[in-house]
């Protein structure tokens, strides 16, 4: 246990170190220009001379300016500590000030995105399960629905999202619903695929056994197919919830939304606030990790209650 802990720690440390190392060449040009303006001697001299040089060569030639690359206001690549500070100031620090849900708080934006994510995930999961049940029990649905479900996922969501929003807006639907629908659009697919596989997982012997009991199709579904499919369903749900989050964020981009993690990304890129972009990205990643973790816990509890040693 202890050994794994250290191994994980070493890997994380290596990633952070690599990140810092990458920040130097990524931010070196602006750092050099700034330092030169303040009177430092830079080799080679003059921004024009440096323009076409590789960032790595410039970094190696000017080790004295490395420190400047890590503390910029609008760096190309913010450092881990800059992102962490921004994350803290827009979440924990706001809570301490009693302004957890102000417009500047990532918790507020995170909640806006999360609500759309959960609604979309719910719609997508129900839709996915219903489609899977239909596909497993009807050959016609198997042949007609499945190809469309696959085709639906080949369309880039970034192209489809604005259309969904515009079409829904024209019929008077706005707010959380369009985002949830984009979210559902991405999340129903893994559920369909996993659930079809799961509902078909009982082998022919188990199906034959039910036949010898003269069991009806619905008895076979509730007593055999559905319980057999649960491990598959949970694997799909973990993929689906992450996809839902992506869907909700993408749904916030094309409308110029003012709240949500997507809006933070958009605003950050308008104003070159790279630190804000990165902290929003990390907030999204943390949110996804939490959601997947919660699903994993529910899965373990449920499967243990079902007597399956997972």
């Amino acid at each position, binding site marked *: 246990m202890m050994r794994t802990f250290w191994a994980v720690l070493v890997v994380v440390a290596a990633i952070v170190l690599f990140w810092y190392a990458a920040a130097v060449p990524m931010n070196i040009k602006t750092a050099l220009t700034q330092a030169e303006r303040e009177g430092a001697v830079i080799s080679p001299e003059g921004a024009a001379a440096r323009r076409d040089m590789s960032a790595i060569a410039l970094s190696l030639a000017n080790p004295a300016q490395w420190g400047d690359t890590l503390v910029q206001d609008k760096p190309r690549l913010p450092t881990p500590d800059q992102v962490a500070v921004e994350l803290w100031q827009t979440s924990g620090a706001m809570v301490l000030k009693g302004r957890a849900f102000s417009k500047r708080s990532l918790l507020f934006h995170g909640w806006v995105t999360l609500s759309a994510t959960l609604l979309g995930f719910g719609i997508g999961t129900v839709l996915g399960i219903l489609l899977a049940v239909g596909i497993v029990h009807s050959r016609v649905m198997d042949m007609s629905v499945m190809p469309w479900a696959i085709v639906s996922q080949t369309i880039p969501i970034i192209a489809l999202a604005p259309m969904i929003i515009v079409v829904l807006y024209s019929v008077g639907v706005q707010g959380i619903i369009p985002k949830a629908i984009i979210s559902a659009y991405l999340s129903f697919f893994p559920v369909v695929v996993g659930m079809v596989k799961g509902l078909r997982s009982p082998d022919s*012997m*188990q199906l*034959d*056994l*039910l*036949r*010898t*009991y*003269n*069991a009806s199709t619905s*008895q076979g579904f509730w*007593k*055999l197919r559905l*319980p057999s499919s649960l491990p598959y369903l949970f694997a799909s749900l973990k993929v689906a919830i992450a996809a839902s989050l992506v869907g909700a964020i993408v749904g916030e981009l094309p409308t110029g939304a003012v709240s949500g993690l997507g809006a933070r990304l958009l605003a950050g890129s308008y104003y070159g606030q790279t630190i804000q972009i990165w902290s929003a990205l990390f907030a999204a990643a943390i949110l996804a990790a939490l959601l997947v973790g919660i699903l994993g816990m529910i899965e373990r509890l449920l499967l243990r209650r*079902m*007597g*399956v*040693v997972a």
Partner: protein
Amino acid sequence: MPVIEARNLELTFQTNDGPVHALKDVNLSIEKGDFVSFIGPSGCGKTTFLRCMAALEHPTGGEITVNGVSPEQARQARAYGYVFQAAGLYPWRTIAGNIKLPLEIMGFSKEEQEKRVKDVLQLVDLEGFGGKYPWQLSGGMQQRASIARALGFDADILLMDEPFGALDEIVRDHLNEQLLALWARTEKTIGFVTHSIPEAVYLSTRIVVMSPRPGRITDVIESPLPKERPLEIRDTPEFIEIAHRVREGLRAGHLDE
């Protein structure tokens, strides 16, 4: 009236390599209380024949009746319990829950279910294991639980498709002994598919020897052994004599090719 009767039974599967005659001209009648074993090399149709009795396969010719009616009607009347090679217990149900499965499907009341679970657990010597999950039991115990599941709804016929085929010989001997005791107590009619000669001879009142291509019956041997059979009976001359005849029958079936 025979419990199971097959007349000129035929079953041909259409495959890409042409028709396969799984069963051809099969005639047999099984009387009430018989313990009939079906033995033969793989592809001889012994399992297919058993599946025809359970309406899991549909013959392409001839006739088969179970309790005087078609296998489908017999199934609706809960005439038989079927035991497969694998126990096939649901991992998410306890042993008692697994035994209740057919009872729930057939609509027995809750009290009736409890009572029957208790009875059949006793019958297969698994008292006290009702609350355990399948993974907590050994392979032999799981197979006994699956037999209990087939006994729960009081079918008069028990169809068993190599039920002990995946178990080691010591466990198998033990289960064979228990199965005989169970048969003596319940007076059920049992159809038993196996590829073990000693198992077939030890258990059966009649041994049906089958051979492949086309699947057919080559010999039906009436066992002169008494109903009461300790395991040591396998060393008696009578036992060895019957085993010899079964082996001859299997070999003759092979020479025909």
